[in-house]
């Protein structure tokens, strides 16, 4: 696991609720694999918790929230979600949360 990630959200309150959520993260580790994507089940904390990877939140137009979070990855999920093509990605992630 990396030390720093970013994620894109339509609604930041959803992931800052303190409960387990499904997210798509981008690995910010410098080097050739920077921005590699992974899908995870995780808990996001703000303020960041010591020992957890830093997480930056961006909006759907890419605006970065200046306040950092931390992320505890509970489980790495498959690289893509099962859903009909062109499905709304955020809806699909919310559905995946409900297992």
């Amino acid at each position: 696991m990396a030390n720093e990630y970013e994620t894109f959200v339509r609604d930041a309150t959803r992931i800052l609720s303190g409960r387990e959520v499904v997210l798509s993260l981008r690995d910010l580790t410098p080097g050739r694999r920077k921005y590699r994507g992974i899908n995870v089940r995780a808990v996001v904390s703000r303020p960041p918790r010591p020992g957890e990877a830093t997480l930056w939140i961006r909006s759907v137009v890419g605006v970065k929230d200046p306040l950092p979070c931390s992320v505890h990855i509970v489980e790495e999920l498959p690289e893509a979600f099962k859903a009909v093509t062109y499905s709304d990605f955020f809806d699909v992630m919310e559905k995946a949360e409900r297992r």
Partner: protein
Amino acid sequence: MAHKDLRGFLAAIGPTGDLLQIDDQVDWDQELSGIGRLSCERNGPAFQFNNIKDYAGWRMVANPVATWRRYAVALGLPADTSVRRLYEFYAEREQQSIPPVTVKSGPCKEVVIPGDKIDLFDLPVPMVHEGDGGRYLGTWDLVVSKDANSDWVNWGMYRFMVHNERLLTGYPRPTSHLGKMFLDGYVPAGRPMPIAIVIGADMPSHLAATATFRIGGSEAELAGGLGQRPIELIKCETSDLYVPASAEMVIEAEVFPDRVAQEGPYGEYPGYRSGEMGNALCARVTTITHRRDPILTLDTTGFMDSSACNTSISGAIAIKRRLEKHGIEVVDVYVPPESGVHMAIVSVRKGGGAVAQKIVEVLTARRALMSKVIVVDDDVDVFNMAAVIHAFSTKCHPERGVHVTRYQGRANTLTPAYSMKERIARAGASVAFDSTWPPEWPVNETPIRATLDAMYSPDVQKKVLARWKALGL
């Protein structure tokens, strides 16, 4: 005749100052594309980066045809060809389709990487803008797909982002030709759709891919016509698709009918990052083939990017043909590249409110990419934006001259003016600004423009122009 491959084109634009070679190390993470972006905004040259951080030995060219000069060379014409002449050349050549020929071998097959050896992070895929959803491999590309139920093969320029070592996500919109093929022919059957993402082909092939072109038409034939030579096509390794044999790289993939992953956001051709994420395609790479020492290409998408000139021309010609088909007496159409394909100037022999309303309705009937149309009389040169602004500002009645049409399900989701809610519903509107004189106005009451060509006698005009010339002006 156009150059046969990317390298021939680059050799032609170097000596004229339209291509700069950069041998100092440049970072793939925003720096390289930032240079390209600034060049687009300043009408600057293309750049070839020969020393990319983390990727020794790889080369990348940013914005091959982002100016009218480079666009002219892409068509095999002198760099100083006027925009009006480029429009005329394009319109002529678009009608002279030249079928492609198939070949058994070609440069794009010099290196073949099978699926199990592919790692997309081995390629110097740039992070184009800060805050994008990821690294975009497909920017100045050509994506080949084939209709499931007919022989129709589509070439389009669509964005594709790297998700991980073998997975790409892309944004050919559902209303695009590729999107239509996929939704009509593959998704109902639950079949994956083969695609080939071609990078660094000959310029006419890319121009054809980004052109506004009819459903069912062959962009390969269009490319032949534009370049005045048949395109050599070669079969893919893992599908029955054919791709330009001279390409620098071909990424073969399969689009899943039942998978999604994050795609975007991305700074797009209208010049904004509009947040159109959440409904994209997901594709697994099956094979990569490329030339030895390939040169990848990049469009630093945004204001006046590499597709702006071509969508200006092909869009304008498509608009003219469609309006003529609906009985409108069109003289000229110009789509200013600075408008991000959102505005068209249409000059007509006979104007008026009814004509303006008909124009905006015809242009938004299937999919509505244009949101503003300025309709002018035929004495206004549509290529002269000063004259267009003058006509619009003075002749368009602030109330009677505004003709709006609204639609649902076919709006341009990349139009920044739309709210997020409108974009999700693909709901929008287009407007025609009638900047013509009402046809019912009597001639002896219609204002006369106070310009040399309209308010002076032919004799005086002739004398003035002769004097002007004699003064060396």
